[in-house]
């Protein structure tokens, strides 16, 4: 969305290395490559966020002792990121779809959804949520900057509303993809 583009490649379920395989479910690995430079500490923490979010929705128990690799290449970074359409396309069994929504809190208190990089910098706080499609619950949350508790609740409510629009977009894209073939 906006100016951000991320290329996602998904490999698996494939055979896992003995050191990495888990006996009861699939082992998920996420690799995030930034646009410039080598992956650093920031990428590692984002990878951990994504991996744990995916593990929650992926029905890994259907594919034990396998490895699923998700490789993300940032092509241009201009703000919020959401990508699970890639997971759906690969046909992996998912318990629920999820989408990422970012809200920026302006200094005067208004809430901006899906901000650009400039808006993010000027904002008092930026909150990113991953909302599940099944029941609009919060799968993942990170914040940057500080905000009051009421503001967080407001952003969460706004994010949940926006999630419905995004899920509709998923449905449309998938319908388009599969109606051709």
């Amino acid at each position, binding site marked *: 969305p906006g100016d951000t583009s991320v290329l996602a490649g998904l490999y698996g379920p494939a055979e896992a290395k003995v050191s990495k395989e888990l006996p009861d479910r699939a082992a998920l690995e996420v690799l995030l490559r930034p646009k410039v430079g080598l992956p650093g*500490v920031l990428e*590692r*923490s984002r990878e951990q*966020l994504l991996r744990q979010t995916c593990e929650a929705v992926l029905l890994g128990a259907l594919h034990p002792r396998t490895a699923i690799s998700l490789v993300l290449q940032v092509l241009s970074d201009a703000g919020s990121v959401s990508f699970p359409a890639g997971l759906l396309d690969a046909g992996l069994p998912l318990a629920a779809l999820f989408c990422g929504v970012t809200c920026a809190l302006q200094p005067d208190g208004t809430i901006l959804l899906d901000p650009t990089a400039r808006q993010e910098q000027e904002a008092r706080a930026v909150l990113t949520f991953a909302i599940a499609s099944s029941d609009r619950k919060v799968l993942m949350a990170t*914040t940057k900057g*500080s905000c009051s*508790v009421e503001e967080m609740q407001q952003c969460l409510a706004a994010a949940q509303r926006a999630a419905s629009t995004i899920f509709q977009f998923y449905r449309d894209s998938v319908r388009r993809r599969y109606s051709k073939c």
Partner: protein
Amino acid sequence: LSICFRTVEPLEYYRRFLKENCRPDGRELGEFRTTTVNIGKCLCSITTADGSALVKLGNTTVICGIKAELAAPAVDSANKGYIVPNVELPSLCAERFRSGPPGEEAQAASQFIADVIENSQMIVKEDLCIANGKLAWVLYCDIICLDYDGNLLDASVFALLAALKNVQLPLVTINEETGLSEVNLKQKSPLIIRKHPVASSFAVFDDTLLIVDPTAEEEDLATGTVTIVTDEEGRLCSVHKPGGSPLTGAKLQDCVTRAITRHKEVKKLIDKVIKSITPK
């Protein structure tokens, strides 16, 4: 018999306790473990650091050492100093950590601490600047876990806060004629700490139950974790929920309320300890 059951079916063992609203170590679901903190050179024993603190949260032991050094500020932010946190999980703290380059957990924790410092504006980088464009302080914050029994993030944030309160920076002046800096070790002033963020971590079980301050065993069995960082005004500095089972907004709100209460407890503890070591 109960030890065998615990090893073979840890989740069931836990569920039995959770049904009675308590945990194997006797705590309530909303109770934190006993927290102790040692600050400063006499009690904490890092004599080479400018500020240090040792925090014990139950069995989890974290030590934080702060070293202050001088450096030239970056070109694009000439009036800002640097704060560099680094969290280390050496192999001595738990058998799951191997020696070698920092693993994902250590790196994610380091990033989390950096974010907390930045978000809460605990230390404003402009305060660390001595001379615009020429000289600024760099604070290296090394947080090392000595014993890992769950809830690393809470203990690390607490240790960092306690150590920073203990730092005394010497006065540095720049000699106008020679352009060199002169460090006056006799005149020391404490660091300006604007906000006091405190982290509270929760573990989610079976998508519904929330327990506070998980031990390592509870973290392994949990289906998700949430960490909330609040400051003294009740504002949220960070909501960190890295995936895991989905939570409703109401549950998140419960966590926040508990975190705010915890903040008051921790603040009282730190103030008490600082008062006890300040020389009269």
